[in-house]
């Protein structure tokens, strides 16, 4: 193990209370992370991909010392997250909780300078660093206004800037493009790419497939607290043979999909609505034998099929193959 981040058999469970009426509650143990191990290599962008509630943020919170793991170990830049908390914090730039991590009554400049102080920068250094970040993010016009007057996108950019205050070699970004409009999101992604080119290692959580595909050197798929797969986007795609994914469009009822899932050769069948029509992604063991059976089963169950085609597998197909559903479905709703 020689990565910037090394995670060894990390698990986290905690107690939540399910409220029942005014006075009754029931304790439930949530297993947010189960025996997760992986490494992040120096200079790479690792995407953490998973639906809401999959365990991504829990993992990040453990790596940034906000949470204590129930078992297992993790090292950041060679520092153990439980033993050397302070060193870990000093060596990571983190963007969590988006715009909520800012002081809204202070200006952008004052926010960055205060966080600079928390990272033990000297007054002149923190002022200079704040100015550099403001300039990088093109926030010069608004930096002396209270954050409460910023748009949601401007707040997100400033929150991202906060992660750069200590100029650490590792950045952990938790869904940084959430709530950003398209141009601002692509501006932020371009900055992330530049920072990576400058040598920064980046852990980037997202539930936007295209973003992960565009930005990340490697992707880790997490669901129900399990690390299901990790590898480069190309490797993950090639793990699905071309003839294993069939795309079907048309009007397809839930009953038809359920019937399809009962077929022995069907590994996964997941529906999503695209432009008002059902798009069914079916992952099968062997396409040739399966195709006729699939069509017959769908038609028998009242489906009206418009197109059947085969695409190059996308990251979304990999996700479906690994989890059995699309990223738009929350873990705990599924």
């Amino acid at each position: 193990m020689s990565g910037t981040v090394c995670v060894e058999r990390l698990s986290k469970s905690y107690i939540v209370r399910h409220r029942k009426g005014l006075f009754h509650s029931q304790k439930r143990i949530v297993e947010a992370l189960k025996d997760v191990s992986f490494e992040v290599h120096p200079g790479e962008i690792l995407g953490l991909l998973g639906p809401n509630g999959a365990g991504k943020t829990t993992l990040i919170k453990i790596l940034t010392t906000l949470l204590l793991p129930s078992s297992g170990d993790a090292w950041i830049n060679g520092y153990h997250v439980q033993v050397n908390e302070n060193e870990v914090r000093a060596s990571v730039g983190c963007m969590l909780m988006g715009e909520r991590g800012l002081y809204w009554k202070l200006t952008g400049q004052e926010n960055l300078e205060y966080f600079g102080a928390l990272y033990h920068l000297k007054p002149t250094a923190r002022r200079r660093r704040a100015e550099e970040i403001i300039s990088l993010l093109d926030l010069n016009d608004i930096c002396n206004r209270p954050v409460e007057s910023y748009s949601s996108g401007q707040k997100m950019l400033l929150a991202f800037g906060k992660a750069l205050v200590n100029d650490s070699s590792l950045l952990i970004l938790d869904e940084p493009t959430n709530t950003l409009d398209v141009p601002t999101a692509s501006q932020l992604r371009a900055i992330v790419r530049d920072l990576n080119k400058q040598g920064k290692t980046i852990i980037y959580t997202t539930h936007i497939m295209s973003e992960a595909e565009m930005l990340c050197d490697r992707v880790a798929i997490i669901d129900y607290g399990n690390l299901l797969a990790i590898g480069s986007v190309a490797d993950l795609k090639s793990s699905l043979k071309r003839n294993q994914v069939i795309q079907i469009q048309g009007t397809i009822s839930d009953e038809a999909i359920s019937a399809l899932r009962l077929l022995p050769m069907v590994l996964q069948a997941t529906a999503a609505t695209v432009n008002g029509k059902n798009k069914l992604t079916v992952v099968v063991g062997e396409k040739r034998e399966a195709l006729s059976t699939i069509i017959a089963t769908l038609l028998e169950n009242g489906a009206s099929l418009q197109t059947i085609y085969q695409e190059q597998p996308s990251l979304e197909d990999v996700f479906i193959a690994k989890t059995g559903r699309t990223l738009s479905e929350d873990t705990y709703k599924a």
Partner: protein
Amino acid sequence: MYLLPKLGAPYQKILTKHEANKRIMKLRPGFSVILASSKTRLLTLSRYPGELLIDIITPIVFALIPILIGKASAGSGAETIFARNTGTENYISYMLIGSCIFSIVFFAFWNVAYWLRSEMETGTIEALYLSPSHRIWVAGGISLYSLIRSIFSAAIAYILGSFLFGVNPFQGNIVLALLFIIIGIIPLYGMTLIFGAMVLRVKQANTLVNLMQWIVSFLMGVFFPIAMLPAFLRVLALLFPPTWMNIGARASILGIEYFFTEWYLDLAVLWGFTIFAPLFGYWAFRSAENKIRSNEGVGTF
């Protein structure tokens, strides 16, 4: 639990818990965080200018009620009856001093509680925990801010109130009174850490602050000498450092007896609290943090 490195692990930078704590508590960067945190709070306060005015008015109004009740219920003999119980006829100054010290004490609890609560609600508490600065330094900054604000408003309230009620604000040994207040501030802020730990655990500030307001005013003897309390409550009151601030400041200004007759003996008791209260407060705060981090984290509110 602090885990040992596994055999063969290439990571040799594992420090002992003691070494890690030593680094955390480095003084110089710590003071820089204290100053930056208090400056941040003062900047925020400057965006609510009306708050300072309310801070000044509150202790005067707080003292006004018992002063008027005293006048109304005891009539012309109020001073004599009061002197029999407290050792001074100057019950207006007595109330005013108690009320101003109470505002310093209550402010300390209020500020720490609402600091934590508002950081939880706005989400900035996780941002604080992500930084390498120990929260004790940030809490120190909040305490400094609270101190500047409360001492400033209590001093103005005392002078203004004295002129308003027609008593001399510069009587007695003011320097000694200030010494009692300044030394008492250290254990006071140690206690606010215990209070902060409770806010972290119960994720509530309003109820705790409301409860604290009555407990503090009662135990400190804001409107009456603690000698009037039942024996068991008197013991509790004497275990509460602000009570000694109050007794010392009143005795120094009004020339009434100190608890142990001599001023330095009362001050020695306060010094004792100065050692234990911050240590106990730190332990309580740290325990609450660890308890939360081992479950759902500081971000939930």
